[in-house]
């Protein structure tokens, strides 16, 4: 082993001792060190001096480790958990509907309509949960730009998906209605509910795409979207089963919880994150 390789091996040991243990940063730092040394040596500098200068330029291992530690753990635990629940529920809906399709209780068009709309509604609930997560982060002072960024990214992607699914579900429902009832729109409360949700989601998509709305506004709109779906899905379902919207208590509880988080989101207190 040459002197230079020994020096680099010693530098690696110092880095590992300082706590830079993850392989990626250390390999990257070593590559940087070697690039800088190559550059210095190409101008005629002796190996030992090039090594010393490159190590000094790279900086102290302790301060580097402090900076790496600030990156911290993945903030997407909550996003990951909620997405996992969402995937599980979507698969469950698909399986239940497939059973009904195979037994001939549903036509393929009706199956596609119910699945698209249910998956779309579920996705809106997911973005609502992200909105509630954001409000909690802000309220309990556990916000960090990385956590907020992770939630915003998830909301951006899932709200586009939900808009696509709901619009597709609505269109499929209209085709089914035309085929079976002779009209694209029949004025059914569930149909009107789906239309309201689709309009809400399209408006949200436009806001996300073309306006400079803050994360806070987007997250509160997600909670609003979730309330909208509660009414469109369970509210109209309650009406169809002869309940009044105000006498169906699970819906009241669901809306109450949403209102609570919406109010917390509007409150100016405990603002710590870069919203």
């Amino acid at each position: 082993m040459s002197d230079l390789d020994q020096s680099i091996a010693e530098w690696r040991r110092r880095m590992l001792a300082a706590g830079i243990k993850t392989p990626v940063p250390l390999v990257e730092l070593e590559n940087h060190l070697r690039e800088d040394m190559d550059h210095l040596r190409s101008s005629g500098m002796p190996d030992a001096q090039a090594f010393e200068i490159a190590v000094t330029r790279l900086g102290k291992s302790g301060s580097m480790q402090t900076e790496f530690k600030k990156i911290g753990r993945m903030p997407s635990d909550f996003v990951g958990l909620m997405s996992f629940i969402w995937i599980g529920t979507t698969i469950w809906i698909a399986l239940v509907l497939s059973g009904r399709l195979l037994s001939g209780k549903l036509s393929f068009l009706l199956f596609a309509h119910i699945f698209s709309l249910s998956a779309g509604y579920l996705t809106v609930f997911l973005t609502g949960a992200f909105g509630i997560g954001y409000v909690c982060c802000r309220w309990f002072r556990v916000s960090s730009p990385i956590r907020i960024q992770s939630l915003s990214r998830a909301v951006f992607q899932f709200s586009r998906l939900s808009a696509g699914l709901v619009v597709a579900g609505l269109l499929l429902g209209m085709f089914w209605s035309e085929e079976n009832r002779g009209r694209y729109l029949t004025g059914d409360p569930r149909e009107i509910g789906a239309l309201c949700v689709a309009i809400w989601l399209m408006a949200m998509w436009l806001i996300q795409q073309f306006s400079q709305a803050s994360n806070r506004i987007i997250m509160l709109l997600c909670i609003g979207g979730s309330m909208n779906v509660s009414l469109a899905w369970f509210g109209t379902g309650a009406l169809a089963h002869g309940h009044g919207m105000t006498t169906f208590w699970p819906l009241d509880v669901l809306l109450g919880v949403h209102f609570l988080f919406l109010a917390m989101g509007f409150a100016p207190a405990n603002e710590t994150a870069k919203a």
Partner: protein
Amino acid sequence: MIRKELVAASAEPLILSLLSRGESYGYAIIQEVKARSGGKLQWTDGMLYPVLHRMERRGLIKSHWAESETGRKRKYYSIKEDGKRAHKKHREQWSLVHSVLAGLQKEQYV
């Protein structure tokens, strides 16, 4: 030499700005910033990597390993859509600060 607070604050916009021109790797980013600032804007080389990793974690940039012309493996970074949006925001904010400072300076000489 530029104060370290300003160097730290400008790191992210500068990295995004450089990466918006095409993918690059740590050593080249540092050399480019050094050259463009005439050596006045100097990062401690090792401090660039935690910043790059944090930006990657936030979804602003992405990376991949590739072999350099010398056969050594390099980690190349490139900008993502979120990064482009953040870059635009940074540019607006820094332009605003610049225009306020320029306006105040102009007033001093009127």
